[in-house]
């Protein structure tokens, strides 16, 4: 039996989400195409629009500002490539951070081959990019800033609310990847002038393969579509809408809105319990400790142990490791290294991401195993004897 502490990678379906999806998925169910004008199509369309309401509501958006996509990776691609292409006559400079998700970084790298100039900001040791850093990086050519609201590895929360109005004043588009933020922290886009925002269903107990992009109407953010054919989603994202997936995302976001405060309190208490037990070990370091972080994520580096062995020592823990591989070409977490962690500590890190079903007993078991295995590996290590 494994203990699943990898909810930042993906979450299981919420039972209510599963129930909501079934009528649109099962044989003999409501299979109509939401774009069809007959009765079956209308029923599907009503379900799609109800889901749009739930998604919009969780983040304080207008219903018409939600564009369905296949997930946050597609949303990031659509936002960044779409904005760059649409506004390329205005300028070709993009500002982002070194700690972004690969869906943003690789998209920016691609755009560099298409004439974009990209500035990759290095965050402080706490994992945050200061608004001033972003403003200093702007040039008259800057068309887009892309930053994630919550980092997937550390759980660090960026100060999006402080930065957004300053970018608005300067007429620079602001895209935010909120895949790890939605349902974890309160988001109100009526108060925070973000222009584009990526959302994912499966990080919030919804189905995999489903996401959305918030595209602001006032002032209107314009995008060049990346998928053509059929003109769905106001022409921004063609393709037959997957009704069951959309209904699942809507149901998940509805549950998330109801549970936001409860989840925050519950996961925060479990996270603190876990850290308290891990602190039995000397020389452990919480990554992003000095910054505000979401309640469910704890990323810890353990001095004196090698990352791959640490991960292999914990076969019953379904978690994430900063270790790619200790072979000659293996790279440790680029996010932790950007925070200034040396390779060994970036490598010897574990990300525990907790979820609604996580229990105190699971936390205690994991903590006991981690403490025991770190002690075992340290005892094996000639380096630990030298440095302790």
């Amino acid at each position, binding site marked *: 039996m494994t203990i699943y502490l990898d909810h930042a990678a993906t979450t299981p379906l919420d039972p209510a989400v599963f129930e909501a999806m079934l009528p649109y998925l099962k044989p003999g169910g409501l299979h109509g195409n939401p774009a069809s004008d007959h009765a079956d199509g209308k029923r599907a369309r009503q379900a799609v629009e109800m889901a749009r309401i739930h998604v919009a509501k969780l983040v304080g958006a207008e219903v018409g500002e939600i564009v369905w996509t296949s997930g946050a990776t597609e949303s990031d691609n659509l936002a960044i490539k779409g904005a760059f292409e649409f506004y390329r006559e205005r300028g070709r400079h993009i500002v982002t951070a070194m700690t972004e998700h690969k869906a943003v970084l690789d998209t920016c790298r691609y755009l560099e081959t298409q004439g974009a100039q990209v500035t990759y900001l290095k965050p402080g040791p706490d994992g945050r990019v200061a608004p001033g850093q972003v403003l200093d990086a702007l040039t008259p050519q800057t068309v887009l800033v892309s930053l994630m609201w919550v980092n997937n590895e550390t759980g660090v929360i960026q100060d999006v609310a402080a930065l957004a109005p300053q970018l608005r004043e300067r007429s620079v588009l602001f895209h935010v990847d909120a895949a790890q933020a939605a349902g974890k922290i309160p988001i109100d886009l009526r108060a925070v002038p973000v222009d584009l925002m990526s959302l994912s269903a499966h990080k919030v107990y919804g189905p995999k393969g489903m996401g959305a992009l918030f595209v602001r109407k006032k002032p209107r953010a314009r995008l060049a579509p990346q998928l053509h054919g059929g003109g769905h989603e106001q022409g921004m994202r063609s393709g037959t809408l997957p009704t069951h997936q959309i209904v699942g995302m809507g149901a998940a976001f509805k549950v998330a809105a109801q549970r936001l405060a409860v989840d925050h309190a519950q996961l925060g208490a479990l996270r603190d319990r876990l850290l308290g037990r891990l602190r039995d070990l000397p020389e452990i370091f919480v990554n992003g400790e000095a910054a505000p972080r979401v309640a469910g994520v704890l990323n810890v580096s353990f001095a004196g142990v*090698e990352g*791959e*062995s640490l*991960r*292999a020592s914990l076969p019953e823990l379904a978690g994430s490791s900063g270790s790619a591989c200790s072979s*000659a070409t*293996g790279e440790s977490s680029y996010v932790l290294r950007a925070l200034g962690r040396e390779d060994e500590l970036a490598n010897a890190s574990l990300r525990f991401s907790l979820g609604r079903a996580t229990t105190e007993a699971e936390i205690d078991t994991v903590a006991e195993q981690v403490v025991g295995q770190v002690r075992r590996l340290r005892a*094996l290590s*000639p380096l630990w004897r030298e440095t302790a």
Partner: protein
Amino acid sequence: MNPFGYSEPVWRLFTEPLHAGMLEGSRVLVGKAATPANRNRLELRVLMKADRIEDARFQAYGCPATIAVGAWLCERAIGSTLADLSAIRAREIRQALEIPEDRHHCALLGEDAVQSLCSSAS
């Protein structure tokens, strides 16, 4: 439970590394090796009785294969002579532990530690 796909001998010796630890005293020989690129370390210590190795211990910092190499070398060393030990090459270590090509450096680390130990005797 070996969810990460290590070979059976690597997994067995990594999860229960026999002969981990230290040896001290005038009859103890020490061999040390390191790979600068990823800081893997292996230290071997053997206790000599006449021309035979009576006991062996290792310490290692590195991936599971590195730890398994240390444990395997200790098993292999006990009861043998230094001449036997010095004949061990990375290829033999890799075969015995079913270490894949991309982990060849772990087996080389073992060979280097053995050579270091044997040269300390001369």
